[in-house]
Every structure is written in structure tokens, then in C-alpha cells.
């Protein structure tokens, strides 16, 4: 079940579901947002995090339908191949997506941002960190998910100074360079969420490319691992770091200057807005009155956090998490 909550489906309360695409700190922040949104809207939210990929996400959706939830917000792991599942859900109750969209589905709205754009911001940070040009390495958990691929592509395109094109895809093993040859991507390293492996990737990349300019960590836990590796290789400061998301160690790094900047999404808002919309739809309000623009995309833009803005962001974060 969703952890805390009233005994099973007391008919009085309206219950909506918030389903993630995995288990991560990012999602525990979103969970906090969802719960806050539920409290405000006077509904109950069931937050489910599939630990074992699609098979579990599918059974979670099924079980939510079983429980006749009054709305589902989901971050589909593999949208093009989950059409049937999404259709089934959409038929049973209002369905919206968050974090990663499924435009071709029956979903009424999408709460989130464009990962390509977010990646682009990280790419810009990386490029700014190397005014003289240089090499970058990308460290990421996985490349299967569409949002991960778009995020990585955004980084590459911005870093290499290309024109934006979200449909591009550089092969994982490719080493593209900018026209003027000043900026190069030396590699993309995946770790499948094995932290030890994630750190080892950084260490090996450093040995492989001793003059590495900037290390970009694209999943929330990557930047801290990069810092650990740099510390071990006493390359802190020599190699620039660009982060993603708001891990405590990442923000600490931004504050202390070991990280030039991090791009934060707003998972808290994902959770909160998703629940607000679902509750509203159930109450019969229209998307427009709920503030969702045409096309149903409620954009929660990502933000660059640098030394100048980190304190304010930290404060906001603590407020949201009630710390």
C-alpha cells in the first residue's frame, strides 16, 4: 500500500494514485508534494514506486484500477509500448502523466518538463565551465528510458553548440565533437544504479582521459559519486562538475564551488500539481479552470542552480519537505 493512510478503501474518501517509474530520492520528494497536494485538495493519494521495472509498474496500475482509484498520475517507463495499459487506465478513470509524457495516449494532461530542455541547460553550464573548450564525460544510470536519452541529448547538443533538435540521438559509444573541434564528448557511462559501479566509471574515465574538462552527472546520485571519485583522484577543481537534481551532497558541492551548477526539476511540484489536477477533474472541473493550457502540457520548467541561487533554493526545498 501507499504506506500511511486509512484502512483499505473506506468508500467516503476519494483516492487517487501517483505512480513513479522507479525508486529514488527524486521520487520521495515528489511523494511529499503529492501528499501535500492531497491534503490541500481533501483527497487521499496512493504513492507507488515500482522497484522492478515495467512488469511491476503494470501490476501496480492494475491493482490501482482494482481499487477503483478516482484518478491516476503515472510516469510511464516505456510509453510507446504501454499504450494498452495506459488506454485501459484512461478508460477506467482520469489519467495524467508526469515526469515523462505519453503524447499518443488518452492522457488528459502532462505535468513536468521537457528533459531535452533540462539537459540543454546542463549542457550550457558545462560549456560555460570550459570557456577555452575541452572534453566532457556523461555519467548516467541508464539509457533505456526516453527521458534519460532526451536529457543526455540536450547536454550533448548544447555542449557542442549544435542547434536544438530533440529528435537527434548520438550512439552511446559515439564521441561527437563540435564543428570547430573545441568541444568533444569522450563518452557516456551507465551504471545501472550500482553506486560502486557509478564511482568506478568516473575513476576509469579520469584515467582514460587525464585532461577531462567537465564531468556531467545526469541522475540524481551521479554528482555525489563524481565528487567522491574526484576527491580520491584529488582532481577536485581541476575537473569541473555539472550536476542534476538536488541531492544534499550536490547542493553542498554547489555551495562550496566544487560543482559549477546543477539543474533541478521540481519533483515536489510534479506530485502536488498532479494530485491537484486529478482531484479537480474528479470534482468535475475542466482542465482550463485547473490552469492546464491547450494540449494539456502543464510545464514545470527546470532551473539552473548555481552558487548565487543555491541558498534560496535550499530554503525552498526545506520548506517543501517540512524540514
Amino acid at each position, binding site marked *: *500500500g*501507499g*504506506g*500511511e*493512510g*486509512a*484502512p*483499505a*478503501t473506506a468508500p467516503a474518501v476519494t483516492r487517487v494514485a501517483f505512480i513513479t517509474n522507479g*525508486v529514488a530520492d527524486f521520487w520521495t520528494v515528489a511523494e511529499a508534494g503529492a501528499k501535500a497536494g492531497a491534503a490541500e485538495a481533501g483527497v487521499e493519494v*496512493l504513492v*507507488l*514506486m515500482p*522497484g*522492478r*521495472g*515495467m*512488469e511491476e509498474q*503494470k*501490476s*501496480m496500475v*492494475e*491493482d490501482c*484500477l*482494482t*481499487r*477503483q482509484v478516482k484518478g491516476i498520475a503515472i510516469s510511464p*517507463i*516505456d510509453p*510507446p*509500448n*504501454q*499504450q*494498452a*495499459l495506459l488506454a485501459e487506465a484512461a478508460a477506467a478513470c482520469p489519467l495524467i502523466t508526469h515526469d515523462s509524457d505519453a503524447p499518443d495516449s488518452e492522457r488528459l494532461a502532462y505535468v513536468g518538463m521537457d528533459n531535452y530542455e533540462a539537459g540543454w541547460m546542463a549542457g550550457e553550464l558545462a560549456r560555460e565551465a570550459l570557456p577555452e573548450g575541452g572534453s566532457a564525460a556523461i555519467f548516467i544510470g*541508464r*539509457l*533505456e*528510458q526516453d527521458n534519460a536519452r532526451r536529457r543526455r541529448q540536450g547536454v550533448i547538443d548544447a555542449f557542442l553548440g549544435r542547434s536544438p533538435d530533440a529528435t537527434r540521438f548520438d*550512439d*552511446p559509444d559515439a564521441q561527437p565533437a563540435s564543428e570547430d573541434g573545441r568541444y568533444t564528448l569522450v563518452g557516456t557511462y*551507465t551504471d*545501472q544504479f550500482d553506486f560502486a559501479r557509478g564511482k568506478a566509471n568516473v575513476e576509469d574515465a579520469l584515467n582514460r582521459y587525464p585532461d577531462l574538462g567537465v564531468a556531467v552527472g545526469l541522475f540524481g546520485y551521479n554528482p555525489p559519486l563524481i565528487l567522491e571519485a574526484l576527491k580520491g583522484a584529488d582532481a577536485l577543481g581541476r575537473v569541473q562538475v555539472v550536476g542534476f537534481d538536488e541531492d544534499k551532497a550536490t547542493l553542498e558541492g554547489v555551495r562550496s564551488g566544487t560543482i559549477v551548477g546543477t539543474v533541478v526539476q521540481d519533483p515536489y511540484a510534479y506530485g502536488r500539481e498532479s494530485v491537484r489536477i486529478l482531484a479537480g477533474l474528479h470534482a468535475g472541473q475542466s482542465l482550463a479552470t485547473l490552469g492546464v493550457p491547450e494540449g494539456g502540457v502543464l510545464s514545470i520548467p527546470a532551473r539552473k542552480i548555481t552558487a548565487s541561487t543555491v541558498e534560496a533554493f535550499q530554503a525552498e526545498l526545506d520548506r517543501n519537505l517540512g524540514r
Partner: protein
Amino acid sequence: MKWGKVLGITLLLVAVVLATAAASEVFLSGRNLENVVRRSALFGILSIGVAFVIATGGIDLSIGSIICLVGVATPWLLVEQGWSVPVTLALVLGTGVVLGLLHGLLITRLGLQPFVVTLCGLLLYRGAARGLVNDRSQGFRGEFDSLQWWAQGELPVLGFGVPVPLLVLIAVALLAAVVLNRTVYGRHLLATGRNEEAARLSGVPTERVIVLAYGICGALSGLGGLLFVLDVGSAQPVDFGSFYELYAIAAAVLGGVSLRGGEAGVVGVLVGATLMQVLRNAIILVDAIPSHIEFAVIGLVILGGVSADELVQRAVARRGRSRPAGS
């Protein structure tokens, strides 16, 4: 097959079902039962397969990776490579059988240990699957509904809509039961599992028996992998089917199949597989249980189950017969 064990595990299942039904009124709803049945059916197929291997005194850790390989290859061949359905099915199912037989041959001819051989399989096939599709997840893109019917569809049986996988499972289970109890092979299998040398000296072709057992397990793993991907719609090579071998083995053990070899029974295995799925379902339906301790709950239930069983067995039969070591 100790019927005592089967009885025990069945009682456990009943208890869990009643408890869940009490805690969540939707549990017994038709749609939910249908879901649970379908999932149990998929895992049940795997468990029956591994039961054959365990009966030889062996183990198969490669099941999850075979599932991954088949689950990834099927949509890849159909969608990306545009192969025809029959050819694809023949290939992926064939792959399962061949890999299983290969394990058996390495174990019997080279005298390698099952744990080692299938551990390598676990690593190899997942790596192969990832390499095959370059870590990209593969799916049916909503096409091939007629094929997915095999995993998602229903057939009306006496008014009820019975999930197709259940029918597949029933077929597999009946076949397995007959093989184990009525055929020469079944007898040879149990004899080999209990005392390979004595069986060999009695003229039992023990090597062939063992190879075949692994072949069966591979075949059912392949079938399982196919049904899983048809059910889910797509597969990510990195984690598709990972740890499923442990679920399958656990179900078999819960169902009274001894890892010491020489014992196997279908009913208990099915009950065991169902129990695990009911637990997972209950954890989501019942608010009181935070879903992230699912593993802990399942672990506790298995441990409790086997311990209780052992204690009961002793209480019942207080015979001093000291178990021969190592056997």
C-alpha cells in the same frame, strides 16, 4: 513429494488469502483475482521448470536471464527486424530449449557444477540481450495484439472469463504431473536425483536424464519469458526478469521440492507460486503494509513457512534417524 508439506503451504496460502480479503474488500473482486491468477500462472510455469532441475539435485540460476533474452528478442525480431510470427516464436522458444540442454551437457559431460554453469548463464544471457539491442528497451508498439492475447486474453469457461495464461499453465502442469508420476523418465529423474551412481549402475542413463531436465527448465523459462513480454508489452534488457529465478526456486522450495534432489511435485509448486503473487498483491491492496518492505514480507513468509514445516515434521515423526551428511 511430501504431501505434508503441500498441506502446510496450502493452509498458509488460505490464511494469507483470508487475511487479505478481510483487510481489503476489493481483493476478492473478479478483476483482481483475474490479475493475481494471471501473474501466478506466469511464475508457476517457471517454478515447474526449475522443479525438474531441482529434482536432479541441481539448480538453475539462469532462468531470469533466459527470460530477459527471450523477452527482448521477441519484440526486437518482430518489430525491428520484421520477422514473421511463427519463425520468431520458433526461434525464441528453441533458444530456451537449446540453452537448457547446453547447461545439462556442461554439467554432465564436463562435470561442472550446476550453480557455476547457470551462474555463468545468468551473466552471459543478460549481457547478450543487452548487447543484442544496445540496451534499448524493445516493445510491440501496440501491434501484435492477437499475439499478446496469449498473455492478456481470456477464454469463457462455464461463464467465467479465464485468463489464457492460466490455461497454458494448466496444460504445462498436467503434462509435468504425468511425466513425473507416470513415465519412466519421471522415475529415472527421481532415482538420479537421490543417488546418481546407484541409478547409473542400475542402467539408468543418468546423463541423458539430467540433460533433459535442464532442457525442460530452459524450455519453460523461454515460454515464461515469451508470456511475460507479451503480457507487459515491452522489455528492458537491464532488468527484465532479473531475480525471477529466485522467485521460481523459492516457490518450488515452498511447495515442498527438496533442494537435496529426488523429490518433485507439481501441486505444491503451484501453491507456492500463487502464495508469492498473493503476497505481492496484498502488499499493494492493504494500506497498512508499506510497499517497499515487500521483499521483507516475502522473505519472512518463506522462512516462516519452511521453519514451521520442519518443526511440524519433527514433532510428527520423532524418529532418531540421523540424516546422512551431505546427502
